[in-house]
């Protein structure tokens, strides 16, 4: 059976080789359980490092124009990149 493991990286700008400032992992194989606050150092320094290590990028956040009147509002992390690895697991 195939299972998906997901890595989400938050970078300092829209370039994939910019620095990681946030990260999350979800392991569909069930071999590891990641959760909030489980690591204080990122798994990779940049998104490009994750590519080099075999992660497959499948989604990146869009660059959207700033809403007039709300140009200085800050909310969610802006540069989000989703990666995956597929693994075979015993049925």
């Amino acid at each position: 059976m195939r299972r998906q493991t997901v890595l989400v990286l938050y970078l300092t700008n829209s370039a994939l080789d910019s620095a990681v400032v946030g990260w999350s992992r979800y392991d569909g194989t069930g071999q590891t359980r990641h959760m909030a606050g489980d690591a204080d150092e990122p798994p990779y320094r940049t998104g490009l490092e994750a590519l080099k290590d075999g992660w497959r990028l499948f989604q990146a956040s869009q660059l959207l124009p700033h809403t007039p009147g709300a140009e200085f509002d800050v909310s969610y992390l802006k540069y989000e990149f989703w990666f995956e690895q597929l693994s075979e697991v015993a049925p």
Partner: protein
Amino acid sequence: MSELPLLDARTMAGFAARGFLRMDGAVPEEINAQFLAEVGEIAGPEPGRKLRRTYGEVLARAAVPEVPAGTPLARAYPQGSAMARLLELPVVAGAIRSLVGEAPTFDHHFLHVTFPPAYHEAGGGENVSQHTHQDSTIDPRQAFDLQIMYYPHEVTRPMGGTRFVPGTHLRKVSEAALGRYQNVRGQQHMVCGAGTLLFLHSGMWHGGGVNLSDRTRTMFKVRMNPSASQVRQFDLSTLERAAAQRPIFYLKGPQPPSVEQILMTPEPWFEDDTGRLEFINRVKLWRYLTGDAGYDADYWLTRLENLATA
């Protein structure tokens, strides 16, 4: 002028920039012991017993009162109770006065108990940390509420502790919408001695850490709202207005300590572009707290407010 030991300008600037103020061991052991006695004994794990039931019994038995939202904080706790005594400590009263002004209003409180693995195994639940979130709901105000986290006993790293991300308090988000962020560079975990207090701006991103130790972890949170002005409530004798803007970008060495230096210090998680928006929003918050509508640091708002109409 208040007789209380008010926060000085640089400590206030630190709160404006980072959204928290930590006071280690500020509460005497006698009050910590009284508080834990008021909370009462927590029953041990029993096979098949759901954690929700154990927790519900702790909350029901504790000698912590139910308090209507909107009660004046000064009337929220019975005289002589641990929480009343804690709030009367001059160092605590001075910080509250500095941050939310005179006579704040009680919003809510909660007794957070985080259980070790044996309870989860006995009850059949999973032992995980709380998703990172911002309390309450989307809050577009410049005014802010204050949350005091009280740690009545020592918290070790295996016990989890409150996790928070300094500097996130000015982000306008909707509660647990940010739950997918498991880790953010610069996050801190409250590992502390008994009697430690963490004062948080109500916008701070935070969550409870998973408890991997063999004892329960207890934290008591109180949220309060300003009922009057939050402006110029700190120790104004320590507030100096710089005569001129600092040089920016082209610098030949480190800058001397100042309010501006505090407000312009980035967090490890800052994005390149929105990090600058964080600086701008810190300046706006400092304008609010000082009542100085013309204040700026490192020219961020001066540049934008130049409409070339003169």
